[in-house]
């Protein structure tokens, strides 16, 4: 009887793991895709910056500039400013992934702090990875399944004492 319970427990855990993996891959596949470039940003050696309206924080444009001899000096109109984001590869990655999918409007610059903010995210700033297996997608179902299975075993053992 104990052997049967252990086998059942293993099946439940494996099912939970499989669900987690499938969920994570489904989430990964639904992420924005880069339709144009051969490899996603940031490209090594590139300089990245964003030109924005100082009053509203609206992003006029985002530029990825190749290494020297290119210069990529922005020509700012009155009321515009520029913020360089080369040293923020996570920001570059997510901002350009959105931009390639016509979703640059998901971003703006906070006029007070001059920080880029993603309005599509619950948290301000792009902190979530663009792709990969997430903790919520993989580990949570697995641990939940483990918890359910262990509770079931505990109840079964109590009932058969």
């Amino acid at each position, binding site marked *: 009887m104990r052997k049967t319970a252990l086998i059942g427990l293993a099946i439940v855990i494996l099912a939970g793991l499989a669900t987690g993996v499938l969920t994570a891959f489904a989430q990964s596949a639904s992420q924005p895709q880069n339709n144009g470039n051969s490899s996603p940003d940031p490209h090594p050696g590139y300089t990245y910056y964003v030109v924005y309206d100082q009053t509203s924080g609206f992003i006029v444009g985002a530029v990825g500039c190749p290494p020297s001899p290119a210069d990529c000096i922005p020509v700012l109109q009155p009321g515009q400013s520029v913020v360089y984001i080369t040293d923020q590869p996570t920001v570059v990655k997510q901002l350009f992934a959105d931009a390639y999918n016509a979703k640059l*409007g998901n971003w703006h610059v906070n006029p007070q702090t001059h920080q880029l903010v993603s309005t599509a995210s619950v948290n301000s700033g792009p902190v979530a990875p663009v792709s990969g297996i997430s903790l919520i997608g993989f580990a949570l179902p697995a641990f939940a399944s483990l918890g359910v299975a262990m509770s079931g075993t505990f109840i079964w053992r109590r009932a058969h004492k």
Partner: protein
Amino acid sequence: MNLYAFLQNFNECLGSHSNLNTYLYQNAGPSSSTWVVTVSIRLNGGDNTQYASWAFQLFDGRDNGNLLLAEYTDGEINYIDNSETFGSTMTASFADPMNLQLGIGNQDSVSQCFAVLVTAWYY
């Protein structure tokens, strides 16, 4: 003939109803040279149907330059296909170093990225 830049790939993404101007090269190379600059532009992701305009301009003169020597421009273009590439080769003689400015206009209600390639020689 000296190769200055070979197929340099610039990513330019514009917000909705926006215009963006950038000096791709500034005070480039030696004075008293003739430059041959090949440029191309295409949509990069986003819509297949796009209102967009652009202007590649070669300026002579130091400190950004102000003398327009050559230009490749296209005004309002509708329904650009994602696989379509537009380009031209500009040739001009400079007294001072070369300046190449790119201006892009996105007249669409959503943002749009553009891939820009530049190759430049001088002699």
